[in-house]
């Protein structure tokens, strides 16, 4: 048996990082959590630029890593760009009509981070406007920019953590709705406003401490949407 000799060389531990990375980038994103829990050194690999650049060039070989994106939202380093591409693929993967675009993922990352800031997030109009400017800056038409921004809002709303902070945020978003009149494409889409109310009255129904609060919000919803679904009334 060659065990004695091969034992020296079945020493994957001693392999340099860039070699081990070649295996990791081929497992696919869903296995990376597991892999980083194997040992500390491997966990630290996921913080290196080296890993993310390798992942980018293997999984998204058509992106140009040195290209900077125009617009107010900075693309960041390799890791952030990878995340943006991954998210773009997830949000839009099943829609063949819309080209997978890194900027959509950047929009998502930007919006999610801003909304989850523990201090008061900026007014939703500002966040929305930033995204629209980003998409237009990258050459999208106003219609496409508006549609993309809507999708990003919907995706972010669906992925906010279910906690008190989100509940307060949703209430704020519901009320910010049409406080300020903005021209198209800076207007928020109807389906986004709808989703905000829907989440409040379904996922977050139990968070309403006072009935007054709940009825105020209901009145707000009724002023925008007629009729409102019975699910929102708790049936």
């Amino acid at each position, binding site marked *: 048996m*060659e065990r004695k*000799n*091969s034992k*020296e*060389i*079945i*020493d*994957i*531990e001693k*392999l340099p990082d860039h*070699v081990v990375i*070649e*295996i*990791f980038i*081929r*497992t*696919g*994103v*869903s*296995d*990376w*959590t*597991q*892999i*980083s*829990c*194997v*040992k*500390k050194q491997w*966990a630290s690999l*996921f*913080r290196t630029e080296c890993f993310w650049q390798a992942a980018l060039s293997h999984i998204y070989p058509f992106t140009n890593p040195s290209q900077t994106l125009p617009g107010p939202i900075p693309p960041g380093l390799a*890791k*952030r760009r990878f*995340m943006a591409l*991954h*998210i773009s693929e*997830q949000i839009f993967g099943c829609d063949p009509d819309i080209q997978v675009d890194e900027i959509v993922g950047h929009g998502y*990352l930007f919006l*999610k*981070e801003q909304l989850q800031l523990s201090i008061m997030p900026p007014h939703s109009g500002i966040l929305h406007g930033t995204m629209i400017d980003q998409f237009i800056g990258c050459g999208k038409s106003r219609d496409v920019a508006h549609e993309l921004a809507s999708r990003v809002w919907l995706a972010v709303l669906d*992925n906010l953590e279910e906690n008190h902070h989100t509940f307060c945020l949703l209430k704020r978003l519901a009320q910010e709705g049409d406080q300020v009149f903005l021209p198209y494409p800076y207007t928020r889409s109807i389906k986004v406003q709808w989703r905000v109310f829907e989440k409040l009255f379904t996922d977050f129904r139990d968070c309403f401490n006072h009935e007054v609060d709940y009825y105020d919000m209901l009145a707000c919803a009724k002023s925008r949407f007629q009729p409102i679904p019975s699910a929102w009334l708790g049936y």
Partner: protein
Amino acid sequence: MAQEASSSTSSKTISLKTGDGEIFEIEASAAKQMKTVQRLIDDLGDDITIPLHNVFSKELPKIIEYYKKDITGEITKDFEAEFVKDLNDDEVKVLFLAANYLDANKLFEFLSQNIADRLESKSVEYVRKYFGVENDFTPEEESKLREERAWSFRGIKEDE
């Protein structure tokens, strides 16, 4: 059959000697695909038996088989599937390490993918066992890390 009579590069063979003393022949054009071997040839000349201390007689024939197919331009998905079909996990690892040592890029990439496939959806313990690696996390550290690294669409978070 030996083809050493011809002096043209295309049919010239190189002798490789494994770490456990066995000698194998390989065509010069195949040897070119293994950069480590090519470097040794450049240094030592192509008439000498090239010593490969870290590759052994168990795996070298398999590597030679791969590159023999490669120089005829015939590596298909079917060939690759067949190539790894009967290899157990250890054998793949050994080949992978040998391909790395030999700087044999095509084989290395193919085997990286194969190992990655073998690890797909496996548990952390499985991966540790596979690589013979010790866990150096405390349970608290590990669960904290899991939370941070929820790489699904739902929980993408950025580290500092």
